């Protein structure tokens, strides 16, 4: 519990420090990191704890974003309406996709989730009224909290609070009976069924919960950029989320958030600075190389390395 409190404190002080150092840009950057931390944590639930290699997670993330975007464009800007709607639609999409996909195993499951997510991508691309391929800008951030969320500081703290809440709920979930069963299913699905668990139901519920949280993260990203585009649903985006999870540590509680921090910071550092010299626009190459190295040589991710150091 203690490291969590220290982290929370640091996170609270961070934007104030940035303001003091006249580096306001990083507050917005940090907010983006927090949102992706939520998305990655939701993927870690289904991927790390549940063992379901879902390659279509971006579909729920992007769908949530689009619901907020569409509602905003149509004049509905209240967070109390738009955000639950985003979560609801993402959960429904997860229910539909999960119900069909979870009847398959292994390689088929991965490819089906991928294909269904692409299907959703094309659905949103085809919405000419909302920008089609280019996406659409929102008239502004959601309202309803009594504070003007256009200000970076207020927005940062709201996102931080939401992330904190989500992580707390996930913590309880993972340690509950449900969490135990999900991990057992990941470890040995046949035996879990043989001792009496209706495995399909548990997997589906886990899938839906994970999708719902991704939807919330999507609602937040729409607000963050004040823009939604179909690229949020592209399978490359799903891949990015998976990279975060493995960098951070698959199946370890802080894996998602840690991976988000790592990847986005890496991206920011490599593309922004002169570290790679004239090649800095090719920072993706470095990301690819690092990812490959991690997969081949440190598959437990950073959280795994830390745990090993601690002797866990």
């Amino acid at each position, binding site marked *: 519990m203690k490291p969590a409190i220290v982290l929370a404190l640091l996170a609270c002080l961070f934007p104030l420090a940035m303001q003091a150092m006249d580096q306001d840009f990083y507050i917005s950057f940090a907010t983006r990191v927090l949102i992706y931390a939520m998305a990655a944590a939701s993927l870690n639930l289904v991927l790390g704890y549940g063992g379901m290699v879902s390659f279509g997670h971006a579909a729920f993330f992007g769908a949530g974003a689009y619901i907020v975007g569409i509602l905003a464009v149509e004049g509905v800007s209240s967070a109390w309406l738009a955000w639950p709607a985003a979560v609801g639609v993402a959960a429904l999409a997860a229910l539909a996709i999960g119900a069909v996909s979870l009847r398959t195993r292994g390689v088929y499951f991965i490819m089906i989730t991928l294909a269904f997510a692409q299907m959703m991508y094309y659905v949103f691309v085809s919405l000419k009224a909302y920008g089609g391929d280019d996406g659409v800008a929102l008239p502004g951030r959601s309202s309803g909290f009594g504070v003007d969320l256009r200000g970076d500081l207020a927005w940062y703290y709201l996102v931080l609070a939401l992330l904190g809440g989500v992580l707390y709920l996930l913590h309880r979930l993972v*340690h*509950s009976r449900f969490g*135990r*069963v999900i991990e057992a299913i990941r470890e040995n699905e046949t035996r879990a*069924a*043989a001792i*009496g668990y209706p495995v399909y139901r548990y997997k589906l519920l886990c899938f839906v919960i994970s999708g719902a949280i991704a939807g919330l993260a999507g609602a937040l990203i729409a607000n963050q950029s004040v823009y939604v585009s179909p690229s949020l649903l592209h399978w490359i985006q799903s891949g990015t989320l998976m990279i975060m999870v493995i960098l951070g540590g698959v199946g370890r509680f802080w894996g998602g958030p840690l991976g988000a921090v790592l990847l986005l910071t890496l991206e920011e550092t490599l593309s922004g600075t002169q570290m790679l010299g004239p090649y800095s626009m090719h920072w993706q190459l470095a990301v690819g190389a690092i990812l490959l190295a991690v997969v081949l040589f440190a598959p437990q991710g950073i959280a795994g390395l830390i745990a090993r150091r601690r002797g866990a």
Partner: protein
Amino acid sequence: MLELKGVSKRFGGVVATDRVTLDVAQGEVHALIGPNGAGKTTLIGQISGALAADAGEIGFLGSDITKAKQHERVKAGLARSYQITSIFKRFSVLDNLALAVQARSGSSFSFWRPVAAEAALFEEARAIAAEVGLSEKTSSLAATLAHGEQRALEVGLALATHPKLVLLDEPMAGMGPEESARMISLIGRVRAKVTVLLVEHDMDAVFRLADRITVMVNGRVIATGSPEEIRADTEVRRAYLGDELAA
């Protein structure tokens, strides 16, 4: 307690179980023996619900469970252990057993309360660990156990669901004489509370424990009876037992 009528299963061109008819009476230890490939594990799979029977009926405690799903059968009191060890390797022994206990004690669609707080679950898990001789190893990771201990955990998992009938698929597979002796006495203790359908190759164990024996060859039942009857049956001797009993 358990009644099979004409249960059959084929995989492509191979007939694994061929119109198998047998019954298991309450309180008995019923052994199922036969050469490798006789279809014993397939039959166990069909009884437990992991495999769907192509034909035939399976009745348990008076109800027809032929179409019942696996978890429904477990709820009804049917449990199974695996020939090839199938445990939760990265869980501790205690957590393994607690999982099985959890399955039958209330709903696991519970998202808030930490499992660690449920003392009753773990107490029961400890009791089962004691019964299968794993009291010393409750906090060890299942993957670190010796083979014999893993087999004991295997049986423990099946027993933890509080079954009325337990299907033990070669519990002594790969065990040395000392471990086998322990498993035999375990089954001896267990039989007081649970009816047992035991698949085994270890003839010593079979003749010591079984009240009745059914012999399967090539997917078909060729004989059922008391140990003495089976020992004397000429067809069984020819097909399976052969020289093993000459000693």
